[in-house]
């Protein structure tokens, strides 16, 4: 495998794609948003339980490629216990990472999400990586039940 592909399909991404975490319906969720990428058919539903401005619990369901599934899975791991402000800030950092606006990839707060640094070399896959985040953003804003990448 070429090193570029190794950069995209890092072990943590393949692992989360094959064994997504928090992959379930969250019955006690008070926010739920469907995300859809009409170009490739990827679907994700984000469930969030928000209390006092904090993400108490979060899960997802859906179907998509390795990048979108792993992104949703790692998102749920990263956000549990975070405040809404922290979550939005993380989205911003993540977005900069996958669109290549943050060439150093040195955002300390990204943690495992830094595994998506290779996405910026694959412009057609940026939407895969950000689908769940767009759904999350809508869920936290709480005014849209469905978001689309288009």
């Amino acid at each position, binding site marked *: 495998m070429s090193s570029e592909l190794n950069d995209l399909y890092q072990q943590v991404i393949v692992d989360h794609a094959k064994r997504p975490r928090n992959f379930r319906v969250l019955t006690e969720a008070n926010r739920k948003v469907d995300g859809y990428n009409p170009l490739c058919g990827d679907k994700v539903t984000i469930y969030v339980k928000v209390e006092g401005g904090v993400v108490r619990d979060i899960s997802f369901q859906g179907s998509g490629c390795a*990048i979108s599934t792993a992104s949703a899975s790692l998102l749920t791991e990263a956000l549990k216990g975070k405040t809404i402000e922290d979550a939005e800030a993380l989205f911003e950092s993540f977005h900069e990472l996958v669109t290549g606006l943050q060439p150093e990839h040195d955002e300390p707060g990204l943690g495992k999400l830094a595994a998506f640094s290779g996405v910026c070399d694959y412009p057609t*896959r940026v939407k895969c990586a950000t689908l769940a985040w767009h759904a999350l953003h809508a869920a936290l804003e709480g005014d849209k039940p469905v978001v689309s990448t288009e």
Partner: protein
Amino acid sequence: MSGTPASASRGAGGSACLGRPNGLPHASARTATGFDVERIRRDFPILSERAYDRPLVYLDNAATAQKPRAVIDALVRFYTTENANVHRGVHLLSERSTAVYEDARRTVQTFLNASSVHEIVFTRGTTEGINLVAQSWGRANVGAGDEILISLLEHHSNIVPWQMLAEEKRATLRVAPIDDRGEVILEEYEKLLGPRTKIVALAHVSNALGTVNPVERMIEMAHSHGAVVLIDGAQAAPHLRTDVEALDCDFFAFSGHKLFGPTGIGVLYGKARLLEAMPPWQGGGDMIRSVTFEKTLYNDLPYKFEAGTPHIAGAAGLGVAIDYVTGVGIDEIAAYEHELLAYATERLSRIAGLRLVGTARHKAAVLSFVIEGVHPHDVATILDRRGIAIRAGHHCAQPVMERYGLAATSRASLAFYNTREEIDALAAGIEAVKEIFH
């Protein structure tokens, strides 16, 4: 004109010395059908491009095909020495461009075996041809309670124009089902034909699965119920001999760009008596005989359906593309692709965890597949970085995907310039995909 034997010039169809067993560049080019693929590859400049520092392996021909040098040269020649508007100028260049444009129409007529050149309407592509029929013939002939019959295999472009018509006219869209192999179930198709069936619209070849429909028989069945038949020939024209007289279809639409010609040009064939009775679709210049504010007289066929300045260079390029294809020989192309498809089917079937989607008994060279545990988009990305271009997604045929309970497939679609070595590269690439997701 370049000097390569396969670079057929206008009217030189049949002169190309392809497929002869001498002058072989290297042994692997020789195939059982005696088709000299290496010689053909040299006619397509883009095939010597490299992708990510590897040889380009282009297996997305059902989306669009690559262009031989002769077609590229024709576009350059047109804009260098022939460019003017058609049908109106009295000057030299207008005469030249009109001659080029109308020559291309005659080339298309011969290629389709249409009885008259007036039956050949230039369009932007297959989609526009289908929309023309739906809007012009359809709005004049389909009414409330009437039925339009398509198959489950159709591309969105042979679904949506009929849905729009059905909605406007309060007609019903009916869909003939397919079996697990991806073949239209003929008994079910026949049952759906009835006195209310006004038009039947069918793909000759499915873009998503490669199924070749038995359209001759299906047309006959539809005609016996008094229905008019449109054939979506987008995927068929580049791969199979097309004979609209033998098929007896009422309309046949195809695209230039899938037939190794330019984008933005296509053809609608229609039987003259139907086209004559149809109202114009778009109004504008060239489609009229005379205009006053009281009354406009429409032009004769086919100009009645060609409002505005057409894609003249595109038509010129399409004419040359057809000359090129007929120079190689459409039957030779079909035989070679059949052999390549058999090889690819056998090669891919041996890969554990790979499932071919669409296993019709009569298929064109399209291989749709899924790999257990790996999403088609990841397959396409990984193959891309190995220089291999395939398509991943629903292939603009979402109902087909739904039929198989899939969101998407990976699709390799072949042309006559593809080789066994490229199939081997595809197979090796798929093994690499599996390695990443083992």
